[in-house]
């Protein structure tokens, strides 16, 4: 193991290059979530690790996000003297080793609840809605009612009013018109005027 101490140096974002043999792809969903996170809390993650040719060994996603956020500089650590095999090994191991770790579900849940209470959206941390839904405790008081779409047999009424002199004609016209509509009946009555 090398004995030189690591030194963080700020480099121009545009001077760094993605490693041509990086096998890991970062989805738009991840990049968007990472950008939102960096925008909110700033750069508190790891420095970008580069080799002596300014090729990125660790931090491709962060570098991409830095470009999108138009950050002129990013913190970097240069690792010199790596063989091609070591570089490729690092590109793979850095991602693969993260995949084989697991969540402490209880602490994760507590963390997400604390974030929710603080008004921080877990969607910004890379969780999709369904994952958050599965992780967080269910509010037992929130009942989900199925929308009822079964047939109903409601009835309607329409009121027709006018002077008594027009009643006979109105009744005749209504009965003629309504005869075309099954189940519709015409009823009549009178109201004495004052």
């Amino acid at each position: 193991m090398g004995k030189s101490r690591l030194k963080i140096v700020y480099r121009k974002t545009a001077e760094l290059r993605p490693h041509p043999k990086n096998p890991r792809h970062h989805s738009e969903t991840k990049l968007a979530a990472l950008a939102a996170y960096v925008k909110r809390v700033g750069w508190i993650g790891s420095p970008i690790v580069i080799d002596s040719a300014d090729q990125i060994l660790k931090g491709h996603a962060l570098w991409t996000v830095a470009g999108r956020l138009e950050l002129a500089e990013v913190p970097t650590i240069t690792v010199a003297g790596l063989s091609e095999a070591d570089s490729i090994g690092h590109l793979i191991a850095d991602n693969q080793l993260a995949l084989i770790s697991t969540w402490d579900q209880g602490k994760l849940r507590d963390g997400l609840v604390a974030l929710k209470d603080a008004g921080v959206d877990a969607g910004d941390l890379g969780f999709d809605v369904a994952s958050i839904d599965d992780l967080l405790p269910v509010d037992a008081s929130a009942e989900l009612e199925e929308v009822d779409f079964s047939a109903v047999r409601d009835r309607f009424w329409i009121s027709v009013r006018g002077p008594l002199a027009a009643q006979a004609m109105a009744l005749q016209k209504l009965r003629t018109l309504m005869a075309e509509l099954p189940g519709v009946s015409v009823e009549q009555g009178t109201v004495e005027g004052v």
Partner: protein
Amino acid sequence: MSRFSERLGKVAKVDNHARSMPDKVALRRRVLEAVPSAQVFDAFAGSGQMYQRVWRDAPGYVGCDLRWFPDDRVAFVADNRRVLRSIDLGAFGIFDLDAYGSPWEQALIVAGRRMVRPGELVGLCLTEGSMMKLKLGGLPKALAQVAGLRPTAVGAAQSADEIMQRAITGLADRMRCRIAKAWMARGKSAAEVRYYGLVFEGVTPAPAH
């Protein structure tokens, strides 16, 4: 890209640098162009703004509103949820659900009662005004149901796009359809209303009962 947005495909954005009315009209015109032989059921018909601008050009139109507007339109004056559960929805090929709030209860009723034959096209126009409620952490129950989420889904404010995608694909699934076309426009007010024009195509026969 989430699997829901993959099914939704590319949602075309209409030119929305003007006020919302032209966007709503544009969406509806595109739906009518895609399903030109359809009779329209306008569930939130109101005074007839969309009828005057678009739907009067459709082969047929029936409106519905809680208020009676005595004009030349054929319209129900009743709760549109009860009307949708009373009539034969097979007579209609376009459903306009231009709600002030959330249209998903009406959408679920349409999905449950409108059988779409394989190859048949059905248009839906949705106005989703729940964005503000989503931002405040709430999720309308009908929206939760159609999107397949619990009503307490957190992260809803920032994931509104994904929730809408889930809801639309959920609706298509319930109607045994694929999403043939989709257009979307955003309202300009702080309430962040979204307008959707959708064309579904039937893909799977309904099961025999």
